[in-house]
């Protein structure tokens, strides 16, 4: 387990964070400029905090009070940078092997073959980084970090330099790191979709402070926590793949409620996470009839949050889990939505984007 406690003066504000990252994927979530990168750099040893203490599984990496400082090359943190940072003078294979040269002999090593296969980079091995696409570079960067026999993977917005299609291409590889390699990860992101797909634990940063820490479902389902703005709010549901239909849909079972999604490449029985954006949800008091939308979740209003604007955030408890719906205050009033009221959440199948569907 990683424990972090840091104080550091930044130009715009003072960073003061304290959190623990249990095994699994911990996502540092927040808008840009909230100190996320400073935190991950301090964990890697690339930045000396004004004050702080960082430990990993009981080993002290940095303790300013006791004047302890482990230089970055002795920390064995596999860092995946935003821009890849592959060595331009080395081939892909040499880049991958770079960390292996320096890994301690007795460290648990992933084999080059396994990592190459896991990331699908076999055809790239003899090329130089200058000729790779952004997505390919990032896959090689993940492999390079993994092959240095790290105790933990640090990823600093590894997808933010990529376009949407490349993001969707890389995200599954981080899921495989989590599920198949099982290496602990600290992952910086400002994207709710990435949190929804990857996070075991979420630490929400705002203006250099920890605003909230919890599981992905807890944090994303809490309308008060919206680092990426109200438009990015959405709930996280867990569901099991029931069957694939011949018309291109996949049927899920979410707590007994059937959900239909565009076909996903998961075997029946496997568990997936789906993020449902609050602004894609329609509410209805009666169970609607003759509607084109396929997904209707019966539920009860848990609470209703309104701000100064015309919108209201309705939080529903359904058999599938908590669902958030963003409606107008006018509709909320007209429908009489108040805590305890029964209503139905309607979600169009096609409104669930592929990047919002991930492995359990």
């Amino acid at each position, binding site marked *: 387990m990683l424990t972090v406690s840091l104080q550091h003066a930044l130009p715009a504000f003072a960073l003061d964070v304290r959190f623990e990252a249990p095994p699994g994927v911990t996502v540092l979530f927040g808008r840009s400029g909230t100190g996320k990168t400073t935190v991950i750099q301090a964990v890697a040893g*690339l930045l000396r905090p004004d004050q702080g203490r960082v430990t990993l599984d009981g080993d002290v990496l940095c303790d300013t009070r006791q004047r302890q400082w482990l230089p*970055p*090359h002795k920390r064995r943190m*596999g860092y995946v940078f935003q821009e890849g940072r592959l060595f331009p003078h080395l081939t892909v294979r040499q880049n991958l092997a770079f960390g292996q040269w*320096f890994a301690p002999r007795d460290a648990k090593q992933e084999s080059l073959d396994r990592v190459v296969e896991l990331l699908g980079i076999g055809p790239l091995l003899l090329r*130089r980084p200058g000729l790779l696409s952004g997505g390919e570079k990032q896959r090689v960067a993940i492999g390079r*970090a993994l092959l*240095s026999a790290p105790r933990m993977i640090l990823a600093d917005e590894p997808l933010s330099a990529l376009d949407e299609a490349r993001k969707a291409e890389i995200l599954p590889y981080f899921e495989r790191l989590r599920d198949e390699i099982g290496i602990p990860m600290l992952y910086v992101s400002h994207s709710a979709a990435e949190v929804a797909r990857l996070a075991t634990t979420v630490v929400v940063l705002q203006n250099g402070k920890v605003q909230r820490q919890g599981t992905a479902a807890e944090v994303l389902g809490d309308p008060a926590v919206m680092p990426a703005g109200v438009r990015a709010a959405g709930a996280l549901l867990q569901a099991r793949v029931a069957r694939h239909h011949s018309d291109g849909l996949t049927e899920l079972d979410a707590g007994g409620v059937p959900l239909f999604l565009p076909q996903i490449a998961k075997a029946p029985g496997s568990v997936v996470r789906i993020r449902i954006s609050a602004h894609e949800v329609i509410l209805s008091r009666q169970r609607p009839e003759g509607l084109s939308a396929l997904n209707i979740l019966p539920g009860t209003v848990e609470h209703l949050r309104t701000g100064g604007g015309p919108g209201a955030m309705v939080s529903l408890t359904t058999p599938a889990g908590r669902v958030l719906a963003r409606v107008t205050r006018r509709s909320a009033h007209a429908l009489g939505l108040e805590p305890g009221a029964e209503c139905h959440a309607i979600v169009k199948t096609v409104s669930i984007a592929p990047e919002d569907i991930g492995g359990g």
Partner: protein
Amino acid sequence: MSAEAAWLGPEEWQAVKLSLRVSLWATLAALPLAVLTAYALARWQFHGKQILNSLVHLPLILPPVVTGYILLMVFGTKGPIGGALQQIGIVFAFRWTGAALAAAIMAFPLMVRAIRLSVEAVDPRLEQAAATLGASRIMCFATVTLPMILPGLIAGTVLGFAKAMGEFGATITFVSSIPGQTQTLPSAIYTFLQVPGGETAALRLTLVSIGIALTALLLSELLARRAADRAGGR
């Protein structure tokens, strides 16, 4: 005896060989220190950085005769450093080693400038990446920085070699122009021009100078291009 030796008179041939030896040693000896200085100036923040920078550049802006005279005062047998070194058997004054020292000091600023520019062109974030992969500072330098600055390093070395080959003022002031001892190509040309009938010998040496300079330049172009291709990721 080679054709060249027959074509050149013994004294001329001696000057060519001496110049090559002096320049080679000057460049090789100055190179590691030039790389370290260039790296420090490009990457590190420390007190006295401006002073170091000025000191390095001093031989470039001082009249060479002044540099030679300072060398004579400091490294002469009666000088503070020269006297001490003499105790352990190292003598610079009026020896070829003194010519090499003068050449090295004159070439140093040019080497540092070329190498410093190429160090500054290396993204320090690549060195950070190497550190997170387990490379210590020295290994970072050897495996990432050094290969990437190789084109600049080659250019700086050739520039330094050319400067050393051509050095005249500081050399003749510090170690004079003793045939076979300290008479390098430029001082030999100068000496031949002082005696009647020496023009043809001076012309031959001039052609040799041009030949050596062109060869060095072509060789460095070739090496630098190959290194740049590698460093550029092609």
